[in-house]
């Protein structure tokens, strides 16, 4: 079994680095290229979720990503330091698999709904001195603002939509998103199960 652990400051720029590391190791563990794309997206979602939570709750604490390859599986764990109730209305946090359906239904509904009144008032406040039509936006100030109207928990819902084996373990000091893929390519697993081809 091989292990690699990465700790990075909760900065959006580091999420890409984390994705690159995860995809490189996924390839080494013999995961098929289609699945490597899933690893890239799932790890990206897990890390950006953690970065956003850290920026809100614990900006000085690094995000931790641990990758394991035990010949049969490729596993990535992303740990955050956010309190258990950080994602109030999002995907349920617990040891059960994430139920994504409600979150994704809410997502489509949110996308189709008109912009909430709060947006208009914020927008008009930002241009009050300019005296122009009140349909302006303030410039993006953080990674969080880019997410805009999305309901919380979208990242976990996306992860559960693409990864067969995923669970979220929550403790008082943070949560760990654990994602697991079968390493069924050219690694030792293929030899052990007699499917070397």
């Amino acid at each position, binding site marked *: 079994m091989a292990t690699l652990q990465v700790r990075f400051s909760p900065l959006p720029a580091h999420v890409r680095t984390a994705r690159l590391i995860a995809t490189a190791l996924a390839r080494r563990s013999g995961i098929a290229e289609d699945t490597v794309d899933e690893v890239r*997206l799932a790890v990206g979602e897990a890390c950006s979720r953690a970065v956003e939570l850290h920026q809100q709750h614990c900006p000085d604490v690094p995000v931790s990503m641990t990758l394991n390859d035990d010949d049969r599986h490729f596993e990535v764990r992303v740990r955050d330091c956010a309190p258990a109730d950080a994602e109030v209305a999002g995907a349920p946090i617990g040891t059960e698999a994430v139920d994504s359906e409600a979150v994704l239904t809410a997502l489509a509904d949110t*996308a*189709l709904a008109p*912009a909430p009144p709060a947006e208009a008032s914020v927008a008009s406040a930002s241009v009050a001195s300019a005296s122009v039509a009140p349909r302006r936006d303030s410039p993006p100030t953080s990674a969080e*603002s880019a997410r*805009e*109207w*999305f309901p919380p928990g979208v990242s976990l819902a996306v992860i559960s*939509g*693409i990864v067969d084996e995923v669970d979220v373990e929550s403790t008082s000091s943070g949560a760990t998103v654990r994602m697991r893929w079968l390493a069924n390519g050219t690694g030792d697993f293929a030899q052990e199960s007699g499917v070397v081809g």
Partner: protein
Amino acid sequence: MDLSLSTRPAGDRTVVVVGGEIDVYTAPKLREQLVELVSNGDYHLVVDMEGVDFLDSTGLGVLVGGLKRVRAHDGSLRLVCTQERILKIFRITGLTKVFPIHSSVEEAAAATD
């Protein structure tokens, strides 16, 4: 790969050509571009995503934000995308019901419904 952005007119619409990775780091730049277009009065947008290598939920959030902005002006936001790995995230999130997705800029620029 970082994010690349450029715009060009196509009839009465504006094409936003996006390349590279749209993620938590680069999504604010795309957001800024869409906000700027709408503030300039460009309410009918075609976002060409054929050069996009990676898209996550942060990027989806920006596209949804763009859609809401143009709709507030009776505008439209159409996507051009034929890449399976990008289309997949739209399907997973149910956003194929929200965005008109076309296979070419020409098709998107000519679409009326």
